[in-house]
Protein backbone atom coordinates (compact mmCIF):
# COMPACT_ATOMS: atom_id res chain seq x y z
CA UNK A 1 0.00 0.00 0.00
CA UNK A 2 1.42 3.41 -0.92
CA UNK A 3 2.18 6.08 1.65
CA UNK A 4 -0.80 8.30 2.33
CA UNK A 5 -1.73 11.73 3.61
CA UNK A 6 -4.28 11.41 6.41
CA UNK A 7 -6.36 14.15 8.02
CA UNK A 8 -7.40 14.31 11.66
CA UNK A 9 -9.85 16.59 13.45
CA UNK A 10 -10.70 16.67 17.15
CA UNK A 11 -14.44 16.45 16.52
CA UNK A 12 -14.03 13.73 13.90
CA UNK A 13 -14.66 11.31 12.41
CA UNK A 14 -16.53 12.78 9.49
CA UNK A 15 -18.00 11.54 6.23
CA UNK A 16 -16.62 8.18 5.12
CA UNK A 17 -14.13 8.30 8.02
CA UNK A 18 -11.26 7.08 5.83
CA UNK A 19 -9.09 10.07 6.73
CA UNK A 20 -8.05 10.70 3.13
CA UNK A 21 -9.47 14.22 3.03
CA UNK A 22 -10.62 16.90 5.47
CA UNK A 23 -14.23 16.09 4.64
CA UNK A 24 -13.64 12.50 5.72
CA UNK A 25 -11.23 13.23 8.56
CA UNK A 26 -10.44 10.80 11.35
CA UNK A 27 -11.23 11.52 14.98
CA UNK A 28 -8.86 10.67 17.83
CA UNK A 29 -9.86 6.99 18.24
CA UNK A 30 -9.57 6.38 14.50
CA UNK A 31 -6.23 8.20 14.35
CA UNK A 32 -4.83 6.11 17.21
CA UNK A 33 -6.07 2.94 15.53
CA UNK A 34 -4.51 3.89 12.21
CA UNK A 35 -1.13 4.76 13.77
CA UNK A 36 -1.25 1.50 15.71
CA UNK A 37 -2.23 -0.82 12.88
CA UNK A 38 -1.61 0.79 9.52
CA UNK A 39 1.11 3.47 9.72
CA UNK A 40 3.84 2.91 7.17
CA UNK A 41 6.94 4.69 5.94
CA UNK A 42 6.05 7.94 4.21
CA UNK A 43 2.62 8.39 5.76
CA UNK A 44 1.74 11.89 6.88
CA UNK A 45 -0.91 12.71 9.48
CA UNK A 46 -2.15 16.31 9.36
CA UNK A 47 -3.76 17.12 12.69
CA UNK A 48 -6.02 20.13 13.03
CA UNK A 49 -5.96 22.48 16.01
CA UNK A 50 -8.11 21.24 18.89
CA UNK A 51 -7.84 19.13 22.06
CA UNK A 52 -7.34 15.37 21.81
CA UNK A 53 -7.87 13.58 25.17
CA UNK A 54 -6.25 10.18 25.49
CA UNK A 55 -8.22 7.46 27.25
CA UNK A 56 -5.34 4.97 27.28
CA UNK A 57 -1.64 4.76 26.57
CA UNK A 58 -0.61 5.08 22.97
CA UNK A 59 2.68 3.21 22.37
CA UNK A 60 3.08 2.69 18.66
CA UNK A 61 5.31 -0.09 17.34
CA UNK A 62 5.30 0.77 13.65
CA UNK A 63 8.35 2.47 12.21
CA UNK A 64 9.08 4.90 9.46
CA UNK A 65 12.31 4.35 7.58
CA UNK A 66 15.55 6.20 7.07
CA UNK A 67 14.36 7.12 3.57
CA UNK A 68 10.74 7.82 4.47
CA UNK A 69 9.86 8.84 8.01
CA UNK A 70 6.28 8.96 9.21
CA UNK A 71 5.08 12.47 9.92
CA UNK A 72 2.64 14.08 12.33
CA UNK A 73 2.24 17.71 11.34
CA UNK A 74 -0.26 19.92 13.10
CA UNK A 75 -2.09 22.67 11.28
CA UNK A 76 -4.29 25.61 12.13
CA UNK A 77 -8.01 25.44 12.59
CA UNK A 78 -9.91 25.72 9.31
CA UNK A 79 -7.05 24.49 7.13
CA UNK A 80 -8.47 23.30 3.81
CA UNK A 81 -5.41 22.67 1.66
CA UNK A 82 -4.77 19.03 0.79
CA UNK A 83 -1.96 18.60 1.55
CA UNK A 84 -1.55 21.63 3.82
CA UNK A 85 1.05 24.27 3.03
CA UNK A 86 3.75 25.44 5.42
CA UNK A 87 1.66 28.57 5.99
CA UNK A 88 -1.03 26.26 7.43
CA UNK A 89 1.32 24.85 10.08
CA UNK A 90 0.33 25.55 13.68
CA UNK A 91 2.54 27.53 16.04
CA UNK A 92 2.16 28.80 19.64
CA UNK A 93 -1.44 28.79 20.78
CA UNK A 94 -2.73 27.32 17.52
CA UNK A 95 -1.05 24.00 18.24
CA UNK A 96 -3.34 21.06 18.99
CA UNK A 97 -3.25 19.80 22.56
CA UNK A 98 -2.72 16.12 23.30
CA UNK A 99 -4.21 15.86 26.81
CA UNK A 100 -2.52 12.70 28.08
CA UNK A 101 -3.82 12.60 31.66
CA UNK A 102 -1.87 9.69 33.19
CA UNK A 103 -1.05 8.20 29.78
CA UNK A 104 1.77 8.49 27.27
CA UNK A 105 1.95 9.38 23.59
CA UNK A 106 4.89 7.28 22.34
CA UNK A 107 5.96 6.58 18.81
CA UNK A 108 8.63 4.26 17.51
CA UNK A 109 11.55 4.79 15.15
CA UNK A 110 11.82 7.39 12.37
CA UNK A 111 8.83 9.54 13.18
CA UNK A 112 8.93 13.31 12.68
CA UNK A 113 6.41 15.03 14.93
CA UNK A 114 5.77 18.76 14.66
CA UNK A 115 3.69 21.47 16.24
CA UNK A 116 1.96 19.87 19.23
CA UNK A 117 1.25 20.80 22.81
CA UNK A 118 1.26 17.89 25.28
CA UNK A 119 0.03 17.88 28.89
CA UNK A 120 -0.07 15.10 31.46
CA UNK A 121 1.54 13.46 34.47
CA UNK A 122 3.08 10.19 33.25
CA UNK A 123 6.32 9.21 34.91
CA UNK A 124 8.61 8.30 32.04
CA UNK A 125 7.82 11.16 29.68
CA UNK A 126 4.69 12.36 27.94
CA UNK A 127 6.27 12.04 24.47
CA UNK A 128 9.51 10.62 23.23
CA UNK A 129 11.83 10.78 20.25
CA UNK A 130 13.03 7.29 19.48
CA UNK A 131 15.74 6.16 17.08
CA UNK A 132 16.10 8.55 14.18
CA UNK A 133 13.07 10.56 15.22
CA UNK A 134 12.53 14.29 15.47
CA UNK A 135 10.35 16.31 17.81
CA UNK A 136 10.03 19.86 16.53
CA UNK A 137 7.99 22.77 17.92
CA UNK A 138 6.56 20.60 20.70
CA UNK A 139 5.49 22.15 24.00
CA UNK A 140 5.38 19.54 26.76
CA UNK A 141 4.30 20.26 30.32
CA UNK A 142 4.38 17.48 32.92
CA UNK A 143 2.57 18.50 36.10
CA UNK A 144 2.99 15.10 37.73
CA UNK A 145 4.64 13.95 40.93
CA UNK A 146 8.33 13.94 41.67
CA UNK A 147 10.77 13.04 38.92
CA UNK A 148 8.27 13.00 36.08
CA UNK A 149 9.63 13.82 32.63
CA UNK A 150 8.22 16.24 30.05
CA UNK A 151 10.14 14.96 27.00
CA UNK A 152 12.01 11.68 26.88
CA UNK A 153 14.56 11.39 24.18
CA UNK A 154 13.98 7.68 24.06
CA UNK A 155 16.83 6.26 22.08
CA UNK A 156 19.97 6.85 20.10
CA UNK A 157 19.86 9.63 17.57
CA UNK A 158 16.65 11.27 18.67
CA UNK A 159 16.50 14.99 17.92
CA UNK A 160 14.58 17.59 19.89
CA UNK A 161 14.44 20.88 18.02
CA UNK A 162 12.74 24.13 18.92
CA UNK A 163 10.74 22.57 21.74
CA UNK A 164 9.56 23.86 25.10
CA UNK A 165 9.67 21.62 28.16
CA UNK A 166 8.40 22.17 31.68
CA UNK A 167 8.09 19.79 34.63
CA UNK A 168 7.56 21.56 37.91
CA UNK A 169 8.43 18.52 40.06
CA UNK A 170 10.67 16.70 37.63
CA UNK A 171 12.76 16.76 34.49
CA UNK A 172 12.32 18.86 31.37
CA UNK A 173 14.21 16.63 28.93
CA UNK A 174 15.97 13.33 29.55
CA UNK A 175 18.59 12.89 26.85
CA UNK A 176 19.96 9.58 25.58
CA UNK A 177 23.04 8.66 23.58
CA UNK A 178 23.79 10.64 20.46
CA UNK A 179 20.79 12.90 20.96
CA UNK A 180 20.65 16.47 19.73
CA UNK A 181 18.78 19.13 21.69
CA UNK A 182 18.73 22.34 19.67
CA UNK A 183 17.07 25.71 20.16
CA UNK A 184 14.87 24.57 23.01
CA UNK A 185 13.43 26.49 25.95
CA UNK A 186 13.36 24.50 29.19
CA UNK A 187 12.02 26.18 32.28
CA UNK A 188 10.63 25.78 35.76
CA UNK A 189 11.80 22.21 36.29
CA UNK A 190 13.61 20.45 39.09
CA UNK A 191 16.23 19.32 36.54
CA UNK A 192 16.17 21.13 33.22
CA UNK A 193 18.04 18.43 31.29
CA UNK A 194 19.22 15.06 32.57
CA UNK A 195 21.85 13.15 30.64
CA UNK A 196 21.04 9.46 30.48
CA UNK A 197 23.95 8.45 28.24
CA UNK A 198 27.02 9.75 26.41
CA UNK A 199 27.41 11.73 23.22
CA UNK A 200 24.57 14.19 23.80
CA UNK A 201 24.84 17.63 22.23
CA UNK A 202 22.87 20.61 23.49
CA UNK A 203 23.11 23.77 21.38
CA UNK A 204 21.38 27.15 21.34
CA UNK A 205 19.16 26.17 24.27
CA UNK A 206 17.89 28.23 27.18
CA UNK A 207 17.44 26.63 30.58
CA UNK A 208 15.57 29.06 32.78
CA UNK A 209 14.69 29.00 36.49
CA UNK A 210 15.20 25.35 37.29
CA UNK A 211 16.51 23.94 40.57
CA UNK A 212 19.44 22.44 38.61
CA UNK A 213 19.88 23.51 35.01
CA UNK A 214 21.74 20.57 33.49
CA UNK A 215 22.57 17.35 35.33
CA UNK A 216 25.46 15.59 33.59
CA UNK A 217 25.61 13.01 36.43
CA UNK A 218 27.97 10.14 35.55
CA UNK A 219 27.72 10.63 31.78
CA UNK A 220 30.75 11.52 29.72
CA UNK A 221 31.66 13.10 26.36
CA UNK A 222 28.64 15.35 26.18
CA UNK A 223 28.58 18.85 24.68
CA UNK A 224 26.90 22.05 25.81
CA UNK A 225 27.45 24.81 23.26
CA UNK A 226 25.95 28.25 22.79
CA UNK A 227 23.42 27.88 25.59
CA UNK A 228 22.08 30.12 28.31
CA UNK A 229 21.58 28.76 31.81
CA UNK A 230 19.82 31.34 33.90
CA UNK A 231 18.60 31.52 37.48
CA UNK A 232 19.19 27.93 38.60
CA UNK A 233 18.30 28.05 42.27
CA UNK A 234 20.93 25.44 43.15
CA UNK A 235 23.40 24.60 40.35
CA UNK A 236 23.61 25.69 36.72
CA UNK A 237 25.54 22.67 35.42
CA UNK A 238 26.25 19.81 37.75
CA UNK A 239 27.99 16.49 37.40
CA UNK A 240 29.12 13.65 39.56
CA UNK A 241 31.77 11.59 37.73
CA UNK A 242 31.16 12.54 34.10
CA UNK A 243 34.36 13.29 32.17
CA UNK A 244 35.34 14.54 28.74
CA UNK A 245 32.48 17.02 28.44
CA UNK A 246 32.74 20.28 26.51
CA UNK A 247 31.03 23.50 27.58
CA UNK A 248 31.61 26.39 25.18
CA UNK A 249 30.08 29.75 24.27
CA UNK A 250 27.55 29.45 27.10
CA UNK A 251 26.15 32.06 29.45
CA UNK A 252 25.80 30.83 33.04
CA UNK A 253 24.08 33.65 34.86
CA UNK A 254 22.16 34.27 38.05
CA UNK A 255 22.62 30.78 39.50
CA UNK A 256 23.39 30.04 43.15
CA UNK A 257 26.34 27.97 41.89
CA UNK A 258 27.35 28.11 38.24
CA UNK A 259 29.08 24.72 37.93
CA UNK A 260 29.67 21.99 40.49
CA UNK A 261 31.03 18.47 40.11
CA UNK A 262 31.18 15.82 42.85
CA UNK A 263 34.41 14.45 41.38
CA UNK A 264 35.64 17.16 39.06
CA UNK A 265 37.94 16.31 36.19
CA UNK A 266 40.09 18.67 34.21
CA UNK A 267 39.11 16.66 31.14
CA UNK A 268 35.81 18.55 31.24
CA UNK A 269 36.64 21.46 28.98
CA UNK A 270 35.18 24.89 29.71
CA UNK A 271 36.08 28.03 27.77
CA UNK A 272 34.54 31.06 26.06
CA UNK A 273 31.74 31.04 28.60
CA UNK A 274 30.27 33.96 30.52
CA UNK A 275 29.99 33.54 34.28
CA UNK A 276 27.94 35.69 36.63
CA UNK A 277 26.66 33.69 39.58
CA UNK A 278 26.63 33.97 43.35
CA UNK A 279 29.34 31.32 43.21
CA UNK A 280 30.73 30.54 39.76
CA UNK A 281 32.50 27.25 40.48
CA UNK A 282 32.47 25.08 43.57
CA UNK A 283 35.60 23.04 42.87
CA UNK A 284 39.11 24.12 41.98
CA UNK A 285 39.35 21.29 39.39
CA UNK A 286 36.69 23.04 37.32
CA UNK A 287 38.91 25.06 34.99
CA UNK A 288 37.05 27.97 33.48
CA UNK A 289 39.48 28.56 30.58
CA UNK A 290 41.65 31.43 29.42
CA UNK A 291 38.92 33.09 27.37
CA UNK A 292 36.23 33.17 30.00
CA UNK A 293 34.17 36.28 30.53
CA UNK A 294 33.02 37.28 33.98
CA UNK A 295 30.37 39.74 35.03
CA UNK A 296 26.85 40.61 34.05
CA UNK A 297 26.07 39.44 30.48
CA UNK A 298 23.51 42.25 30.24
CA UNK A 299 20.60 40.18 28.94
CA UNK A 300 17.70 42.44 27.98
CA UNK A 301 15.02 41.14 30.38
CA UNK A 302 15.63 37.50 31.37
CA UNK A 303 12.98 37.57 34.09
CA UNK A 304 10.41 38.21 31.37
CA UNK A 305 11.90 35.67 28.97
CA UNK A 306 14.05 38.01 26.87
CA UNK A 307 17.56 36.54 26.93
CA UNK A 308 18.90 38.62 24.06
CA UNK A 309 22.10 40.61 24.45
CA UNK A 310 23.07 43.83 22.72
CA UNK A 311 26.33 44.98 21.18
CA UNK A 312 27.32 46.56 24.49
CA UNK A 313 27.11 43.27 26.38
CA UNK A 314 30.06 41.73 28.11
CA UNK A 315 29.33 38.63 26.02
CA UNK A 316 28.97 40.20 22.61
CA UNK A 317 31.32 38.77 20.02
CA UNK A 318 33.41 36.76 22.49
CA UNK A 319 32.31 33.27 21.50
CA UNK A 320 34.75 30.88 19.91
CA UNK A 321 34.24 30.92 16.16
CA UNK A 322 36.14 29.91 13.04
CA UNK A 323 38.17 33.11 13.09
CA UNK A 324 39.83 31.94 16.30
CA UNK A 325 41.29 28.81 14.72
CA UNK A 326 44.99 29.24 14.10
CA UNK A 327 46.03 27.93 10.72
CA UNK A 328 42.57 28.11 9.19
CA UNK A 329 41.94 30.54 6.36
CA UNK A 330 38.48 32.07 6.56
Amino acid at each position, binding site marked *: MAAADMYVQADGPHGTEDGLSWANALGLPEWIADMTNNAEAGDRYFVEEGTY*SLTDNYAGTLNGSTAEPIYIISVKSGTSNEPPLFSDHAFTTARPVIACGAYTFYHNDYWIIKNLEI*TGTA*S*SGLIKADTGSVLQNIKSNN*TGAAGRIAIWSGSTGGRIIGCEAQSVNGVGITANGGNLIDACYIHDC*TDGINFNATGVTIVNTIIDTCVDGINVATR*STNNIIGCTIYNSTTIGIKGSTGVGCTILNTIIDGCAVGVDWTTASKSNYFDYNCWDNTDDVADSDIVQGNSKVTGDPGMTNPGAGDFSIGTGSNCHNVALDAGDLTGATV
Partner: protein
Amino acid sequence: MAINKKYSFKDFLDQKFIQVSATEFNNSEIIGSCFYQQVAPDTQVFPTGITGVRFVRCNLDNVLIPTGNIIESDCCHRKIKVQNDLEDWVVDNSLKSVEPVNKKVFEELGLSTDAKDIPVDFIRKEIVVKAEWLRTKDSPEVTDWFLETPRIISQETKEGTKAILKTKWNSVSDKTIWAKNFDTTPTVTQGKRPVNTRRWIDKNNYVWETTLEDFMILKDNITTYTIEGKGVILIEGRKHRPFTNLSVTFAKEQELRQADIDAVKALGGGIAERLGV
Protein backbone atom coordinates in the same frame (compact mmCIF):
# COMPACT_ATOMS: atom_id res chain seq x y z
CA MET B 1 -28.97 15.87 23.59
CA ALA B 2 -27.13 19.13 23.02
CA ILE B 3 -23.35 19.09 22.97
CA ASN B 4 -21.86 21.15 25.78
CA LYS B 5 -19.41 23.19 23.74
CA LYS B 6 -17.94 25.01 26.76
CA TYR B 7 -16.73 21.78 28.34
CA SER B 8 -16.14 19.60 25.27
CA PHE B 9 -12.78 19.02 23.55
CA LYS B 10 -10.84 20.73 26.34
CA ASP B 11 -7.99 19.90 28.72
CA PHE B 12 -9.10 20.23 32.36
CA LEU B 13 -6.29 18.24 33.98
CA ASP B 14 -6.43 18.73 37.79
CA GLN B 15 -9.09 21.44 37.48
CA LYS B 16 -12.26 21.47 39.58
CA PHE B 17 -15.66 23.02 38.92
CA ILE B 18 -17.26 22.52 42.33
CA GLN B 19 -18.26 26.19 42.59
CA VAL B 20 -19.77 26.29 39.11
CA SER B 21 -23.56 26.05 38.83
CA ALA B 22 -24.74 22.53 38.03
CA THR B 23 -26.97 24.00 35.34
CA GLU B 24 -23.86 24.55 33.22
CA PHE B 25 -23.57 20.78 32.93
CA ASN B 26 -27.01 19.25 33.41
CA ASN B 27 -28.62 17.34 30.54
CA SER B 28 -25.81 17.97 28.09
CA GLU B 29 -23.25 15.88 26.26
CA ILE B 30 -19.58 16.45 27.04
CA ILE B 31 -17.25 15.01 24.41
CA GLY B 32 -13.52 14.49 24.22
CA SER B 33 -12.27 16.30 27.35
CA CYS B 34 -9.70 15.38 29.98
CA PHE B 35 -10.80 15.79 33.62
CA TYR B 36 -8.08 13.53 35.15
CA GLN B 37 -7.18 14.25 38.81
CA GLN B 38 -3.75 12.89 39.65
CA VAL B 39 -3.75 12.95 43.46
CA ALA B 40 -6.45 10.47 44.44
CA PRO B 41 -9.38 8.43 43.11
CA ASP B 42 -12.99 9.59 43.48
CA THR B 43 -12.12 13.26 43.56
CA GLN B 44 -15.10 15.60 43.34
CA VAL B 45 -14.70 17.69 40.24
CA PHE B 46 -18.25 18.68 39.35
CA PRO B 47 -20.74 20.63 41.47
CA THR B 48 -23.15 18.79 43.73
CA GLY B 49 -26.36 17.87 41.95
CA ILE B 50 -25.21 17.46 38.34
CA THR B 51 -27.56 15.15 36.51
CA GLY B 52 -28.29 14.00 32.99
CA VAL B 53 -24.74 14.53 31.76
CA ARG B 54 -23.53 12.10 29.09
CA PHE B 55 -19.74 11.79 28.88
CA VAL B 56 -18.38 10.62 25.52
CA ARG B 57 -14.69 9.87 24.80
CA CYS B 58 -13.62 11.64 27.98
CA ASN B 59 -10.80 10.95 30.42
CA LEU B 60 -12.57 10.64 33.77
CA ASP B 61 -9.79 8.85 35.66
CA ASN B 62 -10.05 9.55 39.41
CA VAL B 63 -13.19 11.64 38.90
CA LEU B 64 -16.26 11.09 41.05
CA ILE B 65 -19.28 10.88 38.73
CA PRO B 66 -22.57 10.84 40.68
CA THR B 67 -25.41 8.50 39.70
CA GLY B 68 -27.82 10.03 37.24
CA ASN B 69 -25.06 10.69 34.73
CA ILE B 70 -23.84 8.45 31.91
CA ILE B 71 -20.27 7.39 31.19
CA GLU B 72 -20.07 5.94 27.67
CA SER B 73 -17.83 2.95 27.07
CA ASP B 74 -15.32 4.97 25.07
CA CYS B 75 -14.41 6.99 28.17
CA CYS B 76 -11.75 5.92 30.64
CA HIS B 77 -12.74 5.93 34.31
CA ARG B 78 -9.96 4.22 36.17
CA LYS B 79 -8.80 4.72 39.72
CA ILE B 80 -5.07 5.57 39.63
CA LYS B 81 -2.60 6.22 42.42
CA VAL B 82 1.17 6.68 42.54
CA GLN B 83 2.77 3.85 44.52
CA ASN B 84 6.02 3.41 46.41
CA ASP B 85 7.88 2.46 43.23
CA LEU B 86 7.07 5.99 42.00
CA GLU B 87 4.87 4.61 39.23
CA ASP B 88 1.16 5.10 38.63
CA TRP B 89 -0.90 1.95 39.31
CA VAL B 90 -4.50 1.21 38.60
CA VAL B 91 -6.19 0.50 41.94
CA ASP B 92 -9.47 -1.15 42.82
CA ASN B 93 -12.35 0.22 44.86
CA SER B 94 -10.48 -0.46 48.08
CA LEU B 95 -7.42 1.37 46.69
CA LYS B 96 -5.47 -1.87 46.34
CA SER B 97 -3.02 -1.90 43.42
CA VAL B 98 -4.06 -4.00 40.46
CA GLU B 99 -1.61 -3.30 37.62
CA PRO B 100 0.70 -0.49 36.44
CA VAL B 101 -0.91 2.14 34.23
CA ASN B 102 1.96 1.65 31.78
CA LYS B 103 1.92 -2.17 31.92
CA LYS B 104 3.49 -2.53 28.50
CA VAL B 105 6.59 -0.57 29.55
CA PHE B 106 6.90 -2.77 32.64
CA GLU B 107 6.72 -5.90 30.50
CA GLU B 108 9.27 -4.57 28.01
CA LEU B 109 11.69 -3.86 30.84
CA GLY B 110 11.09 -7.24 32.47
CA LEU B 111 9.63 -5.68 35.61
CA SER B 112 7.07 -7.42 37.76
CA THR B 113 3.50 -6.28 37.17
CA ASP B 114 2.41 -8.06 40.35
CA ALA B 115 1.33 -5.55 42.93
CA LYS B 116 2.82 -7.63 45.73
CA ASP B 117 6.27 -6.57 44.47
CA ILE B 118 5.64 -2.89 45.14
CA PRO B 119 7.78 -1.79 48.10
CA VAL B 120 5.83 -1.64 51.37
CA ASP B 121 7.25 1.77 52.21
CA PHE B 122 8.59 4.65 50.18
CA ILE B 123 12.11 5.23 51.41
CA ARG B 124 12.93 8.82 50.57
CA LYS B 125 16.60 9.35 49.78
CA GLU B 126 18.24 12.75 49.55
CA ILE B 127 21.69 14.30 49.31
CA VAL B 128 21.87 17.37 51.53
CA VAL B 129 24.60 19.79 52.52
CA LYS B 130 25.36 19.32 56.21
CA ALA B 131 25.18 23.02 57.07
CA GLU B 132 21.79 23.36 55.34
CA TRP B 133 20.58 20.11 57.00
CA LEU B 134 21.42 21.31 60.46
CA ARG B 135 19.50 24.53 59.83
CA THR B 136 16.37 22.90 58.46
CA LYS B 137 16.03 19.31 59.75
CA ASP B 138 13.42 20.21 62.37
CA SER B 139 11.44 22.57 60.17
CA PRO B 140 8.23 21.66 58.28
CA GLU B 141 10.06 21.90 54.97
CA VAL B 142 11.75 18.64 56.05
CA THR B 143 9.50 17.04 58.67
CA ASP B 144 6.37 17.24 56.49
CA TRP B 145 8.09 14.93 53.97
CA PHE B 146 9.48 12.24 56.31
CA LEU B 147 7.43 9.73 58.36
CA GLU B 148 10.40 9.06 60.63
CA THR B 149 13.62 10.82 61.53
CA PRO B 150 15.87 10.16 58.53
CA ARG B 151 19.17 8.34 58.99
CA ILE B 152 22.48 9.62 57.69
CA ILE B 153 23.74 6.64 55.70
CA SER B 154 26.91 8.17 54.32
CA GLN B 155 28.78 11.41 54.23
CA GLU B 156 31.54 13.00 52.24
CA THR B 157 33.76 15.86 53.29
CA LYS B 158 36.04 17.81 51.06
CA GLU B 159 37.74 21.14 51.32
CA GLY B 160 35.81 23.93 49.69
CA THR B 161 37.22 27.17 48.42
CA LYS B 162 35.34 30.17 47.15
CA ALA B 163 36.92 33.22 45.57
CA ILE B 164 34.84 36.37 45.37
CA LEU B 165 35.98 39.48 43.55
CA LYS B 166 36.65 42.03 46.27
CA THR B 167 34.51 44.71 44.62
CA LYS B 168 31.61 42.24 44.57
CA TRP B 169 32.35 41.29 48.18
CA ASN B 170 32.28 44.91 49.27
CA SER B 171 29.05 45.60 47.40
CA VAL B 172 27.07 43.05 49.41
CA SER B 173 26.25 43.67 53.06
CA ASP B 174 25.22 40.12 53.94
CA LYS B 175 28.37 38.16 53.23
CA THR B 176 26.94 34.94 54.71
CA ILE B 177 25.42 34.19 51.30
CA TRP B 178 28.82 32.86 50.26
CA ALA B 179 29.51 31.00 53.49
CA LYS B 180 26.30 29.13 54.10
CA ASN B 181 27.40 25.71 52.80
CA PHE B 182 30.66 25.50 54.73
CA ASP B 183 30.74 23.25 57.81
CA THR B 184 31.87 26.11 60.01
CA THR B 185 32.62 29.78 59.51
CA PRO B 186 35.24 29.79 56.76
CA THR B 187 38.56 31.50 57.02
CA VAL B 188 38.70 34.62 54.88
CA THR B 189 41.92 35.79 53.32
CA GLN B 190 42.70 38.16 50.55
CA GLY B 191 44.67 37.31 47.47
CA LYS B 192 45.21 38.28 43.88
CA ARG B 193 43.96 36.27 40.88
CA PRO B 194 44.08 36.94 37.12
CA VAL B 195 40.97 38.36 35.51
CA ASN B 196 40.48 38.76 31.74
CA THR B 197 38.73 41.90 30.62
CA ARG B 198 38.19 43.48 27.25
CA ARG B 199 39.48 46.89 26.33
CA TRP B 200 37.64 48.26 23.33
CA ILE B 201 39.86 49.97 20.79
CA ASP B 202 36.90 51.08 18.71
CA LYS B 203 33.36 49.84 18.31
CA ASN B 204 34.46 46.77 16.34
CA ASN B 205 37.85 45.87 17.84
CA TYR B 206 39.02 44.98 21.30
CA VAL B 207 41.97 43.37 23.02
CA TRP B 208 42.00 41.09 26.00
CA GLU B 209 43.92 42.33 28.98
CA THR B 210 44.81 40.25 31.98
CA THR B 211 45.01 42.03 35.28
CA LEU B 212 45.55 40.80 38.78
CA GLU B 213 42.53 41.65 40.89
CA ASP B 214 41.88 41.38 44.60
CA PHE B 215 39.75 38.42 45.67
CA MET B 216 38.41 37.37 49.04
CA ILE B 217 39.20 33.66 49.48
CA LEU B 218 36.87 31.63 51.72
CA LYS B 219 38.08 28.22 52.79
CA ASP B 220 36.65 25.47 54.98
CA ASN B 221 35.30 21.94 54.74
CA ILE B 222 31.98 21.18 53.06
CA THR B 223 30.23 17.99 54.14
CA THR B 224 27.32 16.42 52.31
CA TYR B 225 25.06 13.78 53.81
CA THR B 226 23.11 11.06 52.08
CA ILE B 227 19.99 10.65 54.18
CA GLU B 228 17.12 8.22 53.94
CA GLY B 229 13.94 7.41 55.78
CA LYS B 230 10.31 6.48 55.27
CA GLY B 231 8.67 9.39 53.57
CA VAL B 232 5.89 10.65 51.36
CA ILE B 233 6.09 11.11 47.63
CA LEU B 234 3.86 14.09 47.15
CA ILE B 235 1.76 16.48 49.18
CA GLU B 236 -1.20 18.05 47.40
CA GLY B 237 -0.70 21.74 46.82
CA ARG B 238 2.99 21.70 47.82
CA LYS B 239 5.92 21.97 45.43
CA HIS B 240 7.67 18.68 45.92
CA ARG B 241 10.84 18.30 47.96
CA PRO B 242 13.41 16.67 45.62
CA PHE B 243 14.78 13.20 46.30
CA THR B 244 17.34 11.06 44.51
CA ASN B 245 15.19 7.94 44.09
CA LEU B 246 14.42 6.88 40.55
CA SER B 247 11.10 5.47 39.44
CA VAL B 248 11.34 1.72 38.96
CA THR B 249 11.00 1.98 35.15
CA PHE B 250 13.63 4.68 34.83
CA ALA B 251 16.05 2.83 37.14
CA LYS B 252 15.60 -0.37 35.11
CA GLU B 253 16.09 1.44 31.83
CA GLN B 254 19.38 2.90 33.12
CA GLU B 255 20.46 -0.51 34.38
CA LEU B 256 19.79 -2.09 30.97
CA ARG B 257 21.61 0.75 29.23
CA GLN B 258 24.66 0.18 31.47
CA ALA B 259 24.58 -3.50 30.53
CA ASP B 260 24.79 -2.48 26.85
CA ILE B 261 27.73 -0.20 27.59
CA ASP B 262 29.52 -2.95 29.48
CA ALA B 263 28.95 -5.38 26.61
CA VAL B 264 30.45 -2.93 24.11
CA LYS B 265 33.47 -2.35 26.32
CA ALA B 266 34.00 -6.07 26.61
CA LEU B 267 34.42 -6.26 22.82
CA GLY B 268 37.69 -4.37 23.10
CA GLY B 269 39.53 -3.16 20.02
CA GLY B 270 38.84 0.48 20.81
CA ILE B 271 35.18 0.13 19.82
CA ALA B 272 33.96 1.66 23.04
CA GLU B 273 36.22 4.67 22.62
CA ARG B 274 35.12 5.20 19.03
CA LEU B 275 31.49 5.04 20.08
CA GLY B 276 32.15 7.36 22.98
CA VAL B 277 30.78 5.02 25.64
